[in-house]
């Protein structure tokens, strides 16, 4: 199979590609798509779903924020949260995008351990689904060369979409998690290699400093993702998974880490930054921490923010190509 980097597909191109179309049964015959065709269709569909349909846990957290800001008599914060919920309602009614920032596409793919798959083809189908989502809607494309700032026009390019690949033992299906990561929040990303002696206190101080330095810019109320431990790159990746793919209301499986999540959420919401950084008690909807073991001489902490829209979408694909959609939970 040939690589097809940077292909701009015409709008309305048929879902099946050329080499598979040749093997397709006669018109009229019932036929499930191959698993690769399903992956391409899912990659396209999840991009749209994530941009349009805010997950129920995020909606509930925003409604909770509105209620508490109104109870405390903060008119500005109440106005901002009311507008956010009105915006979500408008997007539902008009079947349109919640936010204009179509982000940088991130796909986390979990492949069942008993599946025999051509992984390069799988990755290629994700890329093509992403290109088709962009061309066929059409979505605003955001991908540019980091030096020349030249647009690719497809929301794909070198290294984009970001594809995180992992495996699930003992199953034969594929799970696809998708997040179109918006830039207001992504620009508020931080890494500090703290000293071990700075400990828990140093970790808290760093996270709080990041939230205060970010202020209004990441579109609060945010989900604060924290990556603890690992190597520097692993800490950053864990922070991203924590901010982006975990539902609000979930807590880390390690009780000590879950305790730190609760303490940090309480402290962040005492800073008074509030919705859109205009003041209030609803600065973060959640703090999610993911962790890895680290070196005895290291104490890495990474912070990644997710804006109020908390966008994510998810699908499960069976080996026959049957697809079930949800908002997903890692």
């Amino acid at each position, binding site marked *: 199979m040939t690589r097809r980097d940077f292909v701009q597909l015409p709008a309305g191109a048929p879902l099946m590609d050329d080499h598979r179309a040749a093997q397709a049964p006669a018109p009229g015959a019932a036929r499930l798509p191959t698993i690769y065709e399903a992956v391409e269709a899912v990659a396209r569909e999840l991009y749209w779903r994530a941009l349009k349909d805010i997950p129920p846990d995020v909606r509930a957290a925003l409604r909770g924020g509105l209620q508490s800001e109104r109870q405390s008599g903060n008119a500005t914060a109440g106005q901002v949260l009311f507008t956010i919920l009105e*915006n979500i309602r408008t997007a539902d009614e008009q079947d349109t995008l919640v*936010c204009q920032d179509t982000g940088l596409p991130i796909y986390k793919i979990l492949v069942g351990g008993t599946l025999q798959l051509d992984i390069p083809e799988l990755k290629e189908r994700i890329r093509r689904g992403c290109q088709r989502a962009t061309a066929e809607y059409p979505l605003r494309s955001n991908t540019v060369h980091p030096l020349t700032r030249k647009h690719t026009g497809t929301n794909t390019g070198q290294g984009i979409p970001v594809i995180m690949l992992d495996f699930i033992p003992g199953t034969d299906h594929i799970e696809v998690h998708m997040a179109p990561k918006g830039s207001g929040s992504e*620009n508020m990303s931080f890494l500090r290699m703290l000293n071990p002696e700075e400990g828990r206190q140093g970790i808290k101080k760093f996270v709080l400093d990041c939230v205060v330095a970010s202020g209004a810019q990441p579109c609060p109320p945010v989900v604060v993702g924290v990556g603890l431990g690992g190597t520097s790159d692993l800490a950053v990746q864990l922070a991203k998974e924590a901010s982006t793919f975990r539902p609000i209301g979930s807590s880390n499986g390690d009780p000590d880490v879950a305790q730190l999540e609760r303490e940090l959420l309480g402290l962040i919401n005492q800073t008074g930054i509030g919705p859109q950084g205009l003041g209030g008690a609803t600065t973060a909807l959640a703090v999610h921490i993911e962790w890895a073991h680290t070196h005895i001489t290291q104490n890495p902490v990474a912070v990644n923010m997710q804006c109020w829209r908390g966008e994510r979408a998810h699908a499960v694909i069976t080996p026959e190509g049957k697809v079930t959609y949800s908002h997903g939970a890692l």
Partner: protein
Amino acid sequence: MAHYKLRTPLTELDIRRLRVEDTVAIDGVIFGIRDATQIRIFDRGVPPPADLTGAVCLHTAPGVRKRPDGTYEKLSIGTTTSTRMNRFVPGLVGKYGVRAIIGKGGVLEDSVAAMARHGAAYFAIVGGAAALTTKQIEAIERVWWEDLMPECFWQFRVKEFGPLIVAIDSHGESLYRRVRERAEQRVKEFRLK
């Protein structure tokens, strides 16, 4: 806190009566500008293609579809972070007479001072609320500098565009500064364990 309905172009009087935490809604015309638009104006020295005296500018790069007749259909128009474009604010209000900037995230102290000097204000819109913003924009009336797509110079017709929150007024007061200073103070007072 008071609510004001404003019609463009805005006068100095329109702006001087506003105080932080007031809300406004706008009728008339607003211009859409972004990073690349302002780099062309201020770094390349190309004058803005429209008269910005009394103008309202929105920090945006819209998602659009071009119609066969060359006009644009709005798909998703929202607001980007203003802080990135802070260095252009003194020029917009000082040199070109812009009276209001609509954005999210706020601008820095040099811009707050420039707005106080020239009688301009910063209106906070809810970042990410593009579905509502798009609904409140009646039409894309004109577009210049299409080579910068989507960061062109856009002219939008708006009706009851808002509510927007006056986050920086023309008297040197900034809600962002107030909130940030309070947050820094509170973090200092936390007894972290």
